[in-house]
């Protein structure tokens, strides 16, 4: 096989795994988070009328920029209380693998901080 074919194939698989990850994170967000955080992640899910603490608006750029990736990770894995927030944000450690949680953090960043991501901001 010509080396260029190998390189092309490499790119193909790289792109493939990337889009597959983004796809997986989106499926997870849709299935587990939308019920409270809403179809567009604006904290306006169908369960909101029953809640006395409003789910976080993940597209609120100003607020989300104050949170580090580590804090978002902890909130998802161990629930609201792990980052001094409400128990109304459940803990999902029983639901996801490490990798899936990391991917969800990445997905949330695309909901709030697209411009910063393009500029290459380090969220820690």
């Amino acid at each position, binding site marked *: 096989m010509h080396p260029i074919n190998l390189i092309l194939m490499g790119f193909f698989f790289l792109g493939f795994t990337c889009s597959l990850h983004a796809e997986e994170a989106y*499926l997870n967000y849709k299935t587990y988070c939308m*019920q409270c955080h809403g179809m567009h992640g604006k904290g*306006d899910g*169908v369960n909101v*009328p029953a809640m006395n603490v*409003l789910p976080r608006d993940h597209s609120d750029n100003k607020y989300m920029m104050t949170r580090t990736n580590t804090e978002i990770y902890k909130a998802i894995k161990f629930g609201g209380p792990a980052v001094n927030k409400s128990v109304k944000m*459940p803990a999902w*450690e*029983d639901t996801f693998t490490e990798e899936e949680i990391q991917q969800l953090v990445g997905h949330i960043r695309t909901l709030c901080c697209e411009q910063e991501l393009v500029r290459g901001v380090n969220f820690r």
Partner: protein
Amino acid sequence: MVIEAICEVEMRYSFLVLILALFAAPVFAGAAEGGEQFLRTHCASCHDLNGPAPQTIRQLWKRDAPDLFYAGNKYRREWLVEWLQKPVRIRPAGVNYLRHINSTPPKDQKKKAGRQYDVLWGEVLKPLKHVRLDRKKAEMVADVLMSMVPNYALTANEKLDTSKKVTLDDGEVLIDKVHGCLSCHQIEPGYGGYTGAELYTAGKRLQPAYMLSYIRHPKQWDPKIWMPGYPKMPEEDLQKIVNYLILLAKEDFNASN
């Protein structure tokens, strides 16, 4: 495009599994032949009678009705017999909430703290349409369902401690403020969230051992369900919650509404 191709393959594959599932002999532990046959012809088109529960999100989204293959580990027989004669909705947002939410609400949509939120729409707003059985058929079907117990290992070590008594008020505090179940579950018709099953009937619908096991590890029953697990909940709270649900189910909600 690649993903579409994969999905197509997967869809074809799951169709195969479906065919297999339809023809594979189910494990009914010595129930009446007539009842089995009845279930297979009248119920299998919507309900999974063979298992396993959906293993991926895509499979989960294709599910049209609750899995019944572990019915004998889950339901109380008396409730089954009653409900099959008078079926009513149990999940306010349907079996799959994603099919029944809409983000473009009508003009008269209420707001909360300045936000418009997603609303339910479609068939879940109408009364449930479901096969209705007469008492004799309901008894027969209940017998077969109660004999389907493949998840026995999950409930075998669960035991309700009835000494962990609670009042309705304390129970509500546990469900709402302490553990936040109320976001997804109703503890009174119209009071609570939509994406989980109603809990005000759970006590008479479900076996205590099932509730204890399910609340801690819902994923053991239904690997992709959108209820979080509570592996770290203190045993004391778990016992109290289940005792509360049993107490709650004795309330007469028709009288108060």
